[in-house]
């Protein structure tokens, strides 16, 4: 029987134990153990991660976790990155900020991804949280530098301001001057997404100069090459640096100044930026290359020979983001020089061109898979692939956890055999037993989904486009992938059957996106009716779905589980399938 005496603790002791348990998954497990643990856990939970801002309401979160200090929210579905989610769909953070302003006066950290943030929200943050420290806006939009000025001016203890990849209405570079002279707490500042060519450079310099703990600084394009040296000299303690423009006429004194400034940064491990690179200035980096672990050259239009030279100086490189100018030859060099490489992303320089503009093929990826034993994460854009190459990659690198292959032209077959790429991707899922994320491309039949359903037991996120033959494909994935959380599909012939037969599965996932598929409006309605814990959203910008027969396929479908019920901030082109007769709009 239960030996309750031996295992019971006073609450403070349990709290202490829980304070050493930080991962969301573990905290969630703890809260499900029993009533008393749930109660203790919720009072000492300081960090909350909400993967879908519509899955739960702010009030619910606040009621359950009264002492939160740090919150992370995600809004729009991932396919928003590919412009598949129309503007105005949703993902507004203001309701959250408004509720938290009253409930969490001691909130310190807000991290948002793909959400709509307004200046009003930023002003509310600035006003409401006296101890506010961290603001990360990843791929967000809807705000301007006026909102940033409010944050800069009011947040006395601001440590992080990170605007990575956000769309900001850059009204004036002057907002930087709003940081008071007393602000010395900055640890991380990322303004790389600001578009305008104005930046208050003197304000920036002074800010950098008075923040001795600044570890990460990512500038935007407005900062010219000649200014970099000044900045670096004021912050030799930097660990992560993003340059602005890296182009200028070659002048020896500028060069030596820059090289000197870089070499004085003894802790620098990560570089990014590099818009418009003049290769002649790359050697200025050579002194820090041996220490570099992360290099983001995804904006750098430098050709393969220069890339090869640079990369060969970086033996400790763990993460490389680069354009396909690197070519197979560059990747072969990478494979031989960078044995610590864990993550590789190769982006297309000319995705819309009809013909390949560079010599980057599957061979480059095969070389890296062979030469880099720690490779775990791959994002690779290319124009041709073969089953043989994929099988080789799978056999070489069973430790892959993320594999995203984007063959630019849809439905491209194996270029050697003209067969579909089913077998190649099948090998990937079979060999890479810890694969968590997979993106498919090329010519694919239902077979690839059989393999995925059979072997992809740890797969959490799957992205599919222009693949499959029938509902069977979708059925394999939904019924086989036990760990699936996010599924996004576009332009595939998947219809009602598989979706309805696997309705219960959808409640175990965060979300499902299907656009340009064959799911009928009737099926959407049925799903919405029968599954009250799902929000079934039909998105159609051209006309309301009920103006057509029920058997007509819907344009876009976004299904996500929620305990907050249907949302009420939908634009006119989004309908939530709800109660039996009424469709909420």
């Amino acid at each position: 029987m239960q030996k309750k005496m031996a295992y019971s603790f006073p609450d403070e002791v349990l709290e202490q134990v829980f304070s050493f348990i930080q991962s969301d998954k573990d905290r969630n497990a703890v809260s499900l153990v029993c009533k008393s643990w749930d109660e203790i856990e919720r009072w000492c939970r300081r960090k909350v991660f909400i993967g879908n801002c519509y899955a739960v309401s702010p009030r619910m979160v606040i009621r359950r976790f009264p002492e939160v200090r740090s919150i992370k929210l995600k809004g729009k579905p991932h396919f928003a990155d590919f412009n598949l989610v129309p503007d105005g769909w949703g993902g507004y953070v203001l309701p959250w900020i408004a509720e938290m302003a009253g409930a969490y006066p001691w909130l310190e950290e807000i991290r948002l991804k793909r959400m709509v943030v307004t200046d009003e929200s930023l002003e509310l943050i600035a006003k409401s949280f006296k101890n506010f420290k961290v603001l990360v806006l990843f791929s967000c939009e809807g705000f301007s530098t006026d909102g940033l000025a409010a944050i800069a001016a009011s947040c006395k203890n601001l440590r992080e301001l990170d605007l990575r990849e956000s769309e900001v209405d850059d009204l004036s570079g002057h907002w930087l001057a709003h940081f008071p002279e007393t602000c010395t707490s900055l640890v991380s500042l990322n303004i790389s997404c600001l578009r305008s060519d104005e930046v208050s450079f003197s304000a920036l310099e002074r800010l950098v100069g008075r923040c001795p703990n600044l570890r990460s600084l990512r500038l935007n394009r407005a900062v010219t090459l000649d200014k970099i040296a000044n900045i670096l000299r004021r912050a030799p303690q930097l660990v992560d640096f993003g340059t602005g423009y890296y182009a200028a006429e070659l002048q020896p004194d500028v060069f030596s100044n820059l090289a000197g400034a870089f070499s004085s940064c003894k802790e620098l491990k990560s570089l990014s930026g590099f818009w418009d690179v003049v290769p002649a200035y790359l050697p200025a980096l050579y002194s820090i290359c041996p220490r570099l672990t992360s290099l983001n050259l995804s904006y750098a239009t430098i050709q393969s020979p220069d890339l090869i030279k640079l990369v060969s100086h970086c033996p400790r490189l763990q993460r490389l983001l680069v354009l396909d100018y690197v070519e197979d030859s560059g990747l072969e060099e990478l494979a031989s020089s960078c044995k610590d490489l864990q993550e590789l992303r190769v982006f297309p320089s000319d995705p819309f061109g009809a013909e390949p503009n560079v010599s980057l093929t599957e061979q480059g990826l095969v070389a890296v898979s062979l030469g880099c034993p720690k490779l775990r994460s791959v994002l690779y854009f290319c124009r041709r692939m073969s089953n043989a190459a994929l099988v080789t990659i799978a056999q070489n690198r069973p430790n892959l956890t993320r594999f995203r292959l984007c063959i630019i032209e849809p439905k491209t077959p194996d270029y050697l055999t003209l067969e579909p790429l089913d077998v190649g991707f099948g090998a990937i899922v079979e060999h890479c037993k810890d694969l968590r994320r997979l993106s498919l491309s090329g010519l694919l039949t239902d077979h690839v989904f059989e393999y995925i359903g059979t072997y992809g037991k740890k797969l959490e996120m799957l992205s599919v486009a222009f693949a499959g033959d029938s509902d069977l494909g979708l059925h394999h994935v939904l019924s086989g992938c036990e760990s699936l959380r996010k599924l996004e599909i576009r332009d595939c012939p998947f219809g009602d059957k598989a979706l309805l037969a696997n309705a219960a599965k959808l409640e175990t996932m965060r979300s499902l996106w299907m656009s340009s598929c064959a799911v009928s409006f009737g099926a959407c309605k049925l799903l919405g009716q029968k599954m009250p814990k799902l929000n079934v959203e039909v998105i159609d910008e051209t006309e309301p779905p009920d103006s057509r027969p029920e058997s007509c396929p819907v344009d876009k479908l976004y299904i996500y589980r929620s305990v907050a019920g249907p949302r009420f901030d939908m634009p006119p082109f989004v309908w939530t399938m709800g109660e039996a007769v009424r469709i909420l709009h």
Partner: protein
Amino acid sequence: MSEVDMAVIKPEMMKSYIWLQTADGSIQQVEQEVAMFCPMICHEVIQKGMGSSKNYAISLPQRVNPAMLSLILDYCRFHQVPGRSNKERKSFDEKFIRMDTKRLCELTSAADSLQLKPLVDLTSRALARIIEGKSPEEIREIFHLPDDLTEEEKLEPLKNTTDDPRIRLLNRLYAKKRKELKERQKLKNIEVEEERVDDRSVDDLLSFINGDNGDSKGIKNSKSKKKNRRRKDQQKNTSANEAIKNHNKEPNGLNQVCCSAEVGQTVRAGVGATSNLHDVEDDIFDNKNELDDGDIDDEIDPALKEKIDREVEDFARRLNSDWPERMQEILSFGHERKPVHFSLNGNDSLRRYANSEQR
């Protein structure tokens, strides 16, 4: 050390001792510098002048039994020596902490009652490491904790967000059904259940969509009746509902994020068991005028309730039906082309899979 021994020692080598008494009555003396490492003991000695003799032994808190005291004193004896390096201390701690979970819990508790923070820290971290990566069931088992969260508290139905009694009823039925399936899972062979995961009759579901069982008609008929009833009943029950709302546990939808995987497993694993919803229906009709499970339950027209129950039952049956032949048909239909037989390191897995479909 006994009193006899003490008498033999030369006076200049005499140490001071503190007398401690554990809850079981036994008394012992401990070197002063060791005992004083514990803040609680320190406090008793300094503030209250206790511990100087057997008659004035310090009564230790109940959570400190002799075995735990011995462990704690070992810890104190080591750490109170000032000259030790961090490396030594860390190494000692790592070895010290190796014990079974039961003792670890007792030790944490005991150390806490003696306010010995560094030891509480050490043991708490060790406990945290034990908890990390485990499922709620596993944690419950390790610590002998009761499974006392209700299914609703775990699943978090849509409380406070919709007034539609049908949706609330559906939620409650779903919650009950899941509980049932979970109980069945405990009794039945789990592997047998899981094999049936894929056996859902898609065609059945489709025929349901096309209105074979006349549900839509039923809904329309009872809806007009329901309207009048509902208005009256809602007024009647509002205050009661509010009271119940506050009484119930607050929604914690975030639980669903992690437990839904469990739920999904439960539902799928339970596939194949033809669920008997009669029990559930009886519950509803018996408790028509009471509040079941302390849940919010408006007065719903019994005829409508029946319709809903049947709907849910049908839908559940569709989800759970085991029609292996039908599914095989569907599966084999998609296999006009056999998968290419190539050897992946000569392993048979792919080939085996291909063969199974040729049945």
